């Protein structure tokens, strides 16, 4: 018993909290004011040693002397993997202090610097490539402070550049910015439009004896459209909010593949109708998935932590406004054309087949994580 107690006391007295083993990160903070940026960049000594060698006597220990003698090399290496532009003008980096700090996984060199951009800053763009060639799991944790606001982003090999609007400081400006992004995304994220249009194509028609007939009055058509649009909206708003707030999390590859699949199914349903009543239920079900897609976009934009709810609301409203604009153009036109042969054969039948084919390619690309069609070239 006594020996156990002694052992116990010995261990309790000596608790070596060693540094953690952790994947590689650097911490880059930029404070902007006027036309000037004050920067602080913490880079792990271990990472610098791997990249440019610090342990000159190869004894496994890095001393301050070894660090000090490599000051210029360290600054040069760091500077050559970072570029900051304000507006579209490069802001040259001037080295400052060269200090040491400790993070959970060990000692870091602290490089301070200033960058003058020559004109009042309204936005800055950070291009970051530190260590990505040597360690693709390296991440740059960027923090931009302006006035009272801060903006944080994780930079990685696939997301190595970030533009930050400094006008975000004012909630009003941030609101407009995210509203605009929401509208943009529904207009230029073609998958969402194609899904919605596929569901709306038959709304001005009536399915009778395996063929399409034009609907008579406008009123029932309008009700049907409102039902579909509302169901889609409620569903995607729900999952957009839950995913942005971190309540649900799904791999983006699944989400994007499922979105493509939803477009295929919605379009094929116009050619071989399986469901011709209660399409709003379909809109709701698949809307849940589309919301997760919206959330991924919002995350990629980088969210201001202090205005998370505001940004979420603005983005969501932007998506709805963009969607409403599409519907308000589509509905009168479709209603006007509904009796024509062209609407039924060209738009509903051929159009749906085309949409299904495009979405099928998306589905293959997204699920297999490859590119089959050079879309940018196609749309140039």
């Amino acid at each position, binding site marked *: 018993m006594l020996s*156990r107690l002694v*052992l*116990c006391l010995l*261990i*309790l007295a000596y*608790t*070596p*909290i*060693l*540094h*953690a*083993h*952790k*994947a*590689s*990160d650097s*911490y880059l*903070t930029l404070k902007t004011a006027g036309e000037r940026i004050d920067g*602080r960049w*913490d880079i792990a*000594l*271990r*990472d610098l*040693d*791997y990249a440019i060698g610090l*342990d000159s006597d*190869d004894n*496994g*220990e*890095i*001393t*301050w*002397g070894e*660090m*000090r003698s490599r000051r210029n090399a360290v600054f040069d290496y760091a500077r050559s993997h970072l570029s900051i532009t304000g507006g579209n003008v490069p802001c040259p980096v001037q080295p400052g*202090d*060269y*200090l*040491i*700090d*400790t*993070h*959970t*996984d*060990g*000692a870091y060199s*602290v490089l301070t610097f200033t960058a003058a951009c020559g004109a009042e800053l309204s936005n800055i763009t950070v291009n970051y490539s530190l260590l990505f*060639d*040597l*360690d*693709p*799991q*390296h*991440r740059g*944790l960027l*923090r931009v402070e302006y006035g009272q606001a801060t903006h*944080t982003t*994780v930079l990685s090999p696939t997301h190595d550049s970030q533009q930050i609007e400094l006008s975000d400081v004012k909630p009003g400006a941030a609101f407009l910015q995210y509203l605009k992004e929401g509208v943009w995304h529904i207009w230029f994220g073609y998958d969402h439009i194609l899904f919605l249009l596929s569901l709306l194509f038959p709304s001005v028609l009536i399915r009778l004896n395996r063929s399409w007939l034009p609907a008579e009055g406008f009123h029932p058509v309008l009700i049907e459209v409102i039902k579909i649009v509302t169901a889609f909206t409620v569903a995607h708003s729900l999952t957009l909010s839950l995913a942005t707030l971190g309540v649900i*999390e799904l791999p983006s590859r699944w989400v994007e593949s499922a979105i493509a699949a939803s477009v295929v199914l919605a379009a094929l349903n116009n050619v071989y109708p399986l469901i011709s009543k209660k399409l709003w239920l379909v809109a709701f079900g698949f809307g849940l998935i589309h919301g997760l897609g919206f959330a991924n976009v919002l995350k990629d934009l980088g969210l201001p*932590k202090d205005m998370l709810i505001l940004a979420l609301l603005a983005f969501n409203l932007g998506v709805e406004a963009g969607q409403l604009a599409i519907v308000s153009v589509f509905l009168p036109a479709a209603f006007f054309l509904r009796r024509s042969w062209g609407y039924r054969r060209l738009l509903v039948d051929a159009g749906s087949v085309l949409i299904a084919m495009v979405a099928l390619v998306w589905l293959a690309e997204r699920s297999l994580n490859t590119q089959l069609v050079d879309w940018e070239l196609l749309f140039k």
Partner: protein
Amino acid sequence: MKRKIVVAISVILPCHTAFAAPYQPGNDAQILERLPAASRFENQELRQLRKQMAAGPARTELAVDLAERYIARGKADADPRYYGYAEGLLKSWQQIQEPPPKVLLLSALIKQHRHDFGGALQDLDSLLRRQPENAQGWLTRAIILLVQARYAEALQSCAPLIDLDDALLAGTCLAQVNSLIGHAQKSYDFLQEALADQSAANAEQRQWTLTVLADIAARLGKILDAEKHFSEAIGIEHPNIYLFGAYADFLLDQHQPEKVLALLQDKSRIDALFLRIALAKQQLAASDLDQVTEELEARFAASRMRGENLHQGDEARFTLHLLNKPGEALRLAEANWQAQREPKDARILLAAAVAAHAAEAAKPVLDLLSATGMEHPQLRQLAAQIRQMQR
């Protein structure tokens, strides 16, 4: 109270503000950092190879050799930076259609490490299509499927090992899976016999077989046998992190915190093992528990900041047992269950569901238990508590 404030602040300010101020060291001799040197010789060798690499082109046998060594080091030290280096060395193969088999295997190991199990399985499948006799490929595949609780498929992946040379490897693979689907006793007897027959098996193989035996024995309530197997396994050279974790968990269940601290004395670098140290200190009501909890909190925060969620299972245990926040712990345990479904993942999900009075959340584990007939006293006991809550 003080700890809570510190934790609260470090959550609000998710950046370096939580750390001490930077400083300029006083003299040149001051040692700032000790580079990892599990064995000085190995380190020198790695440095030499890197220097050779720097001279030559990227896609060479040397790069593959070096990547393999980095992965081995990464596994031995549980140090994720090495996996990053290996990935960097293999990067140039990503663009080509059919990478060499070795590159596929290493790439699968890297993906497995960052829990991209789907990607790892894809690599292994293309490897095994071309090299159906690749034992490490089948084994790695079986282990990933086991972690995902896809037991039938895991067995199918163990099966090809029977025809390849190593009988104990195949036997251990099969016994490990079978022991989780209601055949614990049979698997135990079989594996003990197999180990006795293969007295010439290499050290690493013996260690793994003993670890599996220990785990099964513990689940069968054979506490003395489990202790015997664990201590024999840990006595073999280069015990791995998984073994340390499993042994520590066993000792925590036996309320032997002093033994845990002795076992993990110099392992506090590794978050998973540092968590077991903290849990042992909690059982002992140690005076520095607050300090250890703070440090762990900072580490989990650092990992969250880089957008990583590899340690949600451990973080859930930490949040439930050390921070005592059942709701938050349950959310983490459920997210973890989406990626990993080993018995330990099932256990934290059930424990968090019990603590958070959320019986519904336990359903996936209850379903798994009834579908497999898994022998696991602690899981069965937690499941019974859940059912009582439902009444």
